[in-house]
């Protein structure tokens, strides 16, 4: 009975929302034109990357903060359980991981570079890096994940700290994360590069510290 009632309510909810979507008025603010007008000052040629790291850089700064916070909580909760040794890996998997990991690293660097002028960027590159790290761990080739050392911890926090340092440095100019147009490209590349490394480590850590 409860199951039926909830399903009926959810269906009514969906119908009402779809009806609202179909009646949606045209947007009051023309955002694509606003983004296009400022593209020349953004230091980046691809609009999505420009919005992520320049026009709405504040969101991205908070986002990497949220990720880091989630990882710290996962570490704190998981630390009380004893770390278990992974099973001895299959030699076929090890060989595959040895071949695939450098290619995944190459793909990640390409994605990071492509983010300046076509779909791509720090998040996609970080996801590929995380997949490479998980593959290496499953093959038993990355022992550092068993007990996170100082280098790993610095790498996890570097993206957020560099982003925060740039934001704090730009406060001198007047506004948070308002890049001077001449420096915008270089600053965004610096932030994106460290973000990629940190995102890859954090995403892999969220998976591996839970496993």
């Amino acid at each position, binding site marked *: 009975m409860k199951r039926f009632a909830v399903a009926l309510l959810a269906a009514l909810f969906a119908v009402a929302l779809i009806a609202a979507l179909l009646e949606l008025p045209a947007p009051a603010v023309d955002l694509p034109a606003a983004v296009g007008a400022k593209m020349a000052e953004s230091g980046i040629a691809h609009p999505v990357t420009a919005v*992520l790291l320049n026009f709405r850089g504040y969101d991205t700064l908070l986002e990497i903060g949220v990720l880091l916070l989630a990882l710290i*909580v*996962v570490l704190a*909760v*998981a630390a009380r359980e004893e770390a278990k040794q992974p099973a001895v890996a299959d030699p076929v998997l090890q060989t595959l991981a040895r071949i695939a990991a450098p290619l995944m690293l190459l793909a990640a660097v390409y994605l990071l570079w492509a983010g300046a002028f076509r779909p791509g960027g720090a998040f996609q590159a970080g996801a590929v890096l995380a997949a490479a790290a998980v593959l290496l761990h499953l093959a038993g080739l990355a022992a550092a994940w068993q007990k996170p050392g100082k280098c790993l911890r610095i790498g996890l926090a570097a993206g957020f700290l560099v982003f925060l340092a740039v934001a704090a440095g730009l406060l001198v100019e007047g506004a948070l994360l308002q890049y001077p147009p001449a420096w915008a490209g270089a600053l965004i590349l610096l932030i994106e590069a460290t973000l990629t490394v940190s995102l890859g480590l954090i995403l892999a850590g969220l*998976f591996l510290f839970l496993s």
Partner: protein
Amino acid sequence: MTSGLIFACAGVVLFAMGTAGVVLLDHLLRRILAFNLMGSGAFLVLIGLAQRDGMPDPVPQAMVLTGIVVAVAATALALALARRLFALTGGYGLPQSEAKDGND
């Protein structure tokens, strides 16, 4: 009806399915999956509406990219808490639903 609107409507259906799942399911892992389905539906609505006029709008796309990463973080946090709950109570249910399981 453009393809963008069809995507948005599919997102609404996903969101409604996820909502029903969160209410109906007892197992915490299933509830987290249903919550993720709600998130995916919301992202699909944003992305679909962003391109309903043909030209894609970069602002919602960037918002969804940010949202996906935050959703991953929230899911990992929920999974860690669910595991902690399992370590403490030996079950993947919230207390009142566990009492119901015990009667079955």
